[in-house]
C-alpha cells in the first residue's frame, strides 16, 4: 500500500470542500472495497477522506410513503430496518444475499453503489485491463470470462457490476442524491452507472468532487409482490452468476405492473426495460415470461466462457416471475 494523507471530515460541507481541493482524493466509508483496492495497489489516492462521521446515517419515511436512506447507513442496518422489511422486502433480500454479515456490518449504502467490479483481470495487476489502465487492453476477452457480462458490454470491457443491492434499487426506481461545491443533484439510479463503451474506466456520471448523500425510494407499487433471486456457485458468500429483482402485479390474469432488473450480467445494475415492455398487459403466463426474457436477452452478446449466462438469465427471470405469480395469487 502506498502512503496517503488521512483526513477526517466532520460535516458534508467540509468533505466536499476537501475533495475539491485534492484531485485524486477518495472518500472512505465502510472501506470494504477501498481498503482492499488500496492494498492491491489498484487505487492509489494521495488523500483518503474519512466520511464515517458525517450525519448521513438515518432511514426516514417520506411524505409520499417512500423512504430516504442516508448514504452512510450500513448495509446490515438497512436490511433489518422495519421500513425496508415491511415496504421493500426485496431490498432486504438483495442486501442479505450479498457479501457476509461482517462485511455488511461495515459497508455503507453509498459505498455499495460505487463498489468496483470483481473482474479477475481488473484485480490482477499483471493483466491488461482498460478499466484499471485505460488503453492497455482487456485480457478477459481472450481469457477466462465465465463471470463476465453479456449485456451492455463492449469490445473494451466485459466486467460486471458486483452489487446485489443496486439491482433491487434499480427495480425500485431509486434516486441518488449527491452534493458537491456546485450544489445538490438528483440522479435516477439507473442513470448513475455508465456503460463501458471505449471508456470503461469512467464508471459513473459522478464528478470527481461529488459526494453521495442519500438514496430515495418512491412508495412501492401497491398490491405488487416482489422478490430478489440470486444464482451463484455456492450457497452463500459469492457474487452472482445471475440475479433478478422483480416486482409484479397481476390483474385479471394480465400483468398490470412489472419491474425487472438483472445482476451479474452487465456493467451496471441492468433494468430490463425490453422485458418489461413485453410483459406489460400480457397474460401472466409462463409463455409470456419466457417471451419477455427472450426480448431482453436478444441483445445479449456472449463469449465462449459465459454463453451459459444467457440461458441461466432466461431461466432465472422465468423462475422468479413464476414464483411471484404463485405468491401473488396465493395472497
Amino acid at each position, binding site marked *: 500500500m502506498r502512503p496517503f494523507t488521512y483526513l477526517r471530515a466532520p460535516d458534508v460541507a467540509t468533505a466536499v470542500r476537501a475533495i475539491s481541493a485534492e484531485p485524486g482524493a477518495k472518500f472512505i466509508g465502510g472501506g470494504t472495497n477501498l481498503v482492499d483496492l488500496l492494498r492491491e495497489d489498484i487505487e492509489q489516492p494521495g488523500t483518503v477522506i474519512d466520511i464515517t462521521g458525517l450525519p448521513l446515517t438515518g432511514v426516514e419515511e417520506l411524505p409520499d410513503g417512500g423512504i430516504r436512506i442516508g448514504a452512510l447507513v450500513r448495509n446490515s442496518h438497512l436490511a433489518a430496518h422495519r421500513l425496508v422489511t415491511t415496504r421493500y422486502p426485496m431490498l432486504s433480500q438483495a442486501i442479505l444475499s450479498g457479501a457476509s454479515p461482517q462485511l455488511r456490518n461495515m459497508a455503507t449504502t453509498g459505498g455499495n453503489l460505487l463498489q468496483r467490479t*470483481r473482474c479477475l483481470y481488473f484485480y*490482477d495487476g499483471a493483466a491488461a485491463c482498460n478499466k484499471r489502465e485505460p488503453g492497455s487492453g482487456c485480457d478477459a476477452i481472450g*481469457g477466462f470470462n*465465465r463471470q463476465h457480462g453479456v449485456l451492455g458490454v463492449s469490445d473494451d470491457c466485459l466486467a460486471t457490476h458486483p452489487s446485489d443491492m443496486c439491482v433491487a434499487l434499480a427495480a425500485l426506481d431509486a434516486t441518488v442524491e449527491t452534493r458537491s461545491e456546485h450544489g445538490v443533484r438528483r440522479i435516477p439510479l439507473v442513470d448513475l452507472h455508465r456503460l463501458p463503451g471505449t471508456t470503461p474506466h469512467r464508471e459513473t456520471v459522478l464528478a470527481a468532487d461529488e459526494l453521495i448523500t442519500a438514496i430515495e425510494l418512491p412508495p412501492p407499487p401497491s398490491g405488487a409482490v416482489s422478490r430478489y433471486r440470486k444464482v451463484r*456457485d*455456492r*450457497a452463500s458468500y459469492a457474487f452472482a452468476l445471475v440475479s433478478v429483482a422483480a416486482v409484479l402485479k397481476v390483474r385479471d390474469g394480465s400483468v398490470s405492473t412489472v419491474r425487472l432488473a438483472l445482476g451479474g450480467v452487465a456493467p451496471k445494475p441492468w433494468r430490463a426495460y425490453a422485458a418489461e415492455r413485453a410483459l406489460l398487459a400480457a397474460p401472466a403466463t409462463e409463455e409470456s415470461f419466457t417471451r419477455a426474457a427472450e426480448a431482453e436477452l436478444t441483445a445479449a452478446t456472449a463469449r465462449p466462457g459465459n454463453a*451459459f449466462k444467457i440461458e441461466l438469465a432466461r431461466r432465472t427471470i422465468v*423462475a422468479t416471475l413464476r414464483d411471484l405469480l404463485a405468491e401473488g395469487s396465493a395472497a
Partner: protein
Amino acid sequence: MAIGKAISRVEAGDKVTGAARYTEDVRVAETAHAVLLGSAISAGRVRGIDTRRAERAPGVLAVITHLNRPDFAAVPPTPYTAEGRMPLVDDRIHYAGQYIAVVVAETREQAEHAATLVVVDYHRTSPVPTLDAALSQAYIPRENGLARVPSEYRRGNAEAALAAAPVRVEEEYRTAALSHAPIEPSSTLAYWEGDRLTIYDSTQSVHMHRPLVAIAFGVPEDRVRMYCSLVGGGFGNKSYSWPHVFLAPMAARVVRRPVRVTISRKQVFTGTGHMAATVQTVRLGADQDGRLRALIHDSVNQTSFIDDRQETASAITPYVYAVPDLYARIRVTKVNTGTGGAMRTPGDSAGAFALESALDELAHRLGMDPLELRRRNHADVDPVSGRPWSGKQLLACYDQAAERFGWDRRNPEPGSARDGDDLIGYGMAGGQRTEHQRPAQATVDLTDDGTAVIRSSMVEIGGGGLTTLSQIAADGLGLPTAAVTFQHGDSALPAAAPTFGSMTSGSTGSAVKLAAADALRAAIDLAVGDRRSPLHGADPDDVVAHEGGLRLRDRPGDGESYRALLRRNRINTLRGDGDFQPEGEDAEHAMATFGVHFTEVRINRYLPRVRVVRHVAAFSIGRVLNAKTARNQAQGGIIMRLGAALMENQRPDPVSGRFISPALTDYHVPVNADIGEIDVIFVEEPDTNANPLGARGLGEICAVGICASVANAVHHATGKRVRSLPITPDKLL
C-alpha cells in the same frame, strides 16, 4: 481407558481464548519483516530489476534479488524441498508468482510499500499456459526423488482382456487444480547466532525440514533448531519447504537481524503448491454379471518446468478391486505453473473420481446396483502382492453405510426421484488409501508429582494428535489424560513422524505407546527391587499400572503411587523411550484404509446448482483413538472434498498461464451454508497387524471417493454424466 473416548482436545482452551501461539504470533525482539515480490509473467527472464527507489523507501533494510543474493551452499534433496530450483538463483522465470526479489524493512507495511516501487524489466517468452495446451507432450517422468511411486504398473494383459470383455466403459475424466488454501498463510521467522540458526516455521514436520535448511545454508544439522507447535491447517502444503522457508534465513543473514516472512494470501496459492489438474482415462471391461475382467487407468497431470511431480492418480488403482488384468500409468507434462504438491489426499482423491465414476457408468450399463458391482469385485487380499490385509472391514462399511443412508430406497432410473422443482439423486463411491508408516521416536517421562510428560517433535495441525497421543500415554501408565502434558513441535525433541500422510496415529502414536510401556517397565523394576515398596519382590509381569501408580494384577490392594515410589527413591523423572520402526517391505500384511460414501443431492431443475443435503460415509481404519476428534476430522475431510466436487478450481489464465483467482473471493471453498447433514460411521477393529496401537490413519482416507459419489448422485438425479470437476451450475443447464 482413555483411548477411544470422546474427550475434548487438550489445547482447545488456548485456541478459544486467543492464547494459542502460531508461527506468526511468535515475537522475537528486533525482528525485521520481509515481503516477497513475485513475477508478473509466467515464462521468460528478468532482464533488469531496478530496486533503487525501493531501497530508499522508509524503513527499508535490504532488497535482495538474483543479482545480489548470497549463495546457497547446496540444493537440498527433494521431495521435501518443494522445488528443485532454489529461489533467486538466476534470472529465469518458470511461473507467475515465482519470487524475484525479497524486500526487508522495519515493518511489514513498509516492506509491502517498497515492493510496489521495484521496477522489473521482463523478457517474455511464450508460456505453456494450461494442462490442455501441454497434453500432447505428456511423458513418463524419469525416476528421481520426486517420482514417489512407479509410473507404470501392469498385471496380465489388460488390452487383450479389455478387447475380449463383453461389456466396456471407456471415458475421460478431468479434475481441476485445487488449492490447499489453509486459513493460516505460511510464515517463517529466522535468526542467526553465529552459525546457529533458529527457525520458527509453519511446517508439518520440524524433523523432515530441518536438514533441508541445514544443507541449503551449509551448517551442521545440529546447529539448526526448528520450531512449530501449532499449524493453522496445511493439508499437505506445509509438508514441503517452499522457497520462502529458505529466503527468511537468507534475509536474516543479509540484514543481521531476525527476519519474518509471512506470505500473502495470493502467495499461498502460487507459492505453496496445489493439487495438480489431471486428465484421466479409465477403460473397464466386465462380464455380464459385473465381474471386472480388465482395467486400464491412465493419468496425466500438469507439472512445472522445474520439477517432475506426479499427481499419482492411478497409483492406488491396482490395489482396489480384484481385477486380473490391469494397467496403470502416470504421466506428467510441463506447464508454466509452480510445482504442485501433495494435497489431502494425493493421487487417490483425483484417481477415485475417475475410477469410481467409471464403475458407476459400468453399473448403469449393466443394469446393476453400483454397490453390488463393488461387492462382486471386492479384493479379499491385496491384488498386487497377494498378501492378506492387516485389517479390512470394507464389506461391513458397505452394509452399515448403505443401511444408514437408506440406499435400498433408490430407484435406479435416473431422474426418477423428485420433490417439487427439485430433482433428487442418490450416488455412492468407494475409496482406498495405502497406509504409510515412518519411524518415530518419543519419550515419556514419569515425574515425581505423579504426572507424565511426552516429548516428541510432533506438530499439531488440527488433527488432534496432541490429544490422542496424550490419551495413549495416559492409558499406558494408568493416568488420567489431564495428568499428561506434551512437549512438541521442537527439533530438539525426539523425532516424530511427520504430521502428514496420516502417520501421526499409527507411527508417532506407536512410539508414544512404546515409550509409555518402557516408562512403566522402569517404574515396575524400580518398585519390585525396592525393599520399601509394597511391591518388593513381586514378579514384574504381575505388576500393572493403575490409577496413578502400580499394583499387583491379582491383588488390587497391594500397590503404591508413582509419586510415592519416585519420591522415596529421590528420582525426579523416570524416562521411557519409544522407537517405532515400521516393518517396511517385508511386512506380512498389506496395509490400507478403506471407505465408502453415499450422497444425496438435490438440484433445482430450472436453476441447477447441486446441493448435497445428506452424506453418509463409513471407514475402516482399525481402532479409533478419540471419537470426538476423529468424527470432526472425517466430516471435515468430506466437506473439503465436496468443495472439489462442486466449486474449487484454481484456474490458469488460458493465455498467460497465471492463476487468475488467487484470492478466497474467487477460489471458492465451501462455506457453512453449503453443508447438509454429514454422517460418519467407523467400523472399528483394532489392527495390531499394522502397528502396536492398532490404529491406521484417518486424515486422508476420509477425503477419497466423495467427488465420484457426488457426480454419481448428479447422474442419478439428472441423467447427466459430468466427467469434469467441479460440477458447477453451467454444466447442468
